[in-house]
């Protein structure tokens, strides 16, 4: 099974609606990263969370880290078509330099 589970797998929302994407790890989190990917482009860094309870925002996107639940949630307020893409979470699963990645959440925002 995947070490990192993302839910939902895909999401279609109407423009202006709020939404939440979750990322749950089966192992202790040492750091969690959120990236966004559009078709034909590389991954764009959104946020890095390192401490339990930490919350960061990037424009209308907010992410929180719950260390006890080994989970992070990414919340988009008043979604726009520009928010469409694939959202990926990655974690440092231990003392190594490679990130473990979730399978991603595909988001479509209908105007």
């Amino acid at each position: 099974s995947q070490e990192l589970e993302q839910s939902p797998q895909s999401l279609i929302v109407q423009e202006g609606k709020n939404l939440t994407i979750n990322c749950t790890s089966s192992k202790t989190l040492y750091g969690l990263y959120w990236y966004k990917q559009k078709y034909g482009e590389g991954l764009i860094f959104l946020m890095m969370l390192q401490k339990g309870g930490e919350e960061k925002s990037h424009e209308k996107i907010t992410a929180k880290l719950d260390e006890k639940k080994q989970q992070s949630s990414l919340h988009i307020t008043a979604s726009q078509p520009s928010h469409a893409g694939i959202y990926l979470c990655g974690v440092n699963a231990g003392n190594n330099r490679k990130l473990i990645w979730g399978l991603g959440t595909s988001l479509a925002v209908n105007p």
Partner: protein
Amino acid sequence: GAGVSQSPSNKVTEKGKDVELRCDPISGHTALYWYRQSLGQGLEFLIYFQGNSAPDKSGLPSDRFSAERTGGSVSTLTIQRTQQEDSAVYLCASSRQGAMGANVLTFGAGSRLTVL
């Protein structure tokens, strides 16, 4: 350069041929990573460079895959005797340093490889 540059952006090859994929990282970034992204598989780690050395090659799927980095800058991923299951998008990323907690990676747009 301003970003991570990868070439070619698209490569179609016949089974059994060798391919080379190139990555030009951000100037000054000492850490360089190769990942593979396949449909439904997520991002798969291939290899990590710190400077010119590769302390972690654990993700290379077979001995047909190799990578090198010269001058602490450009890296080349070589796939010999390509197979259809090698078809994927190969992503390169670089970061300022490889220490844990500082893994803010900047990705290139990727090289899409199709093996017929």
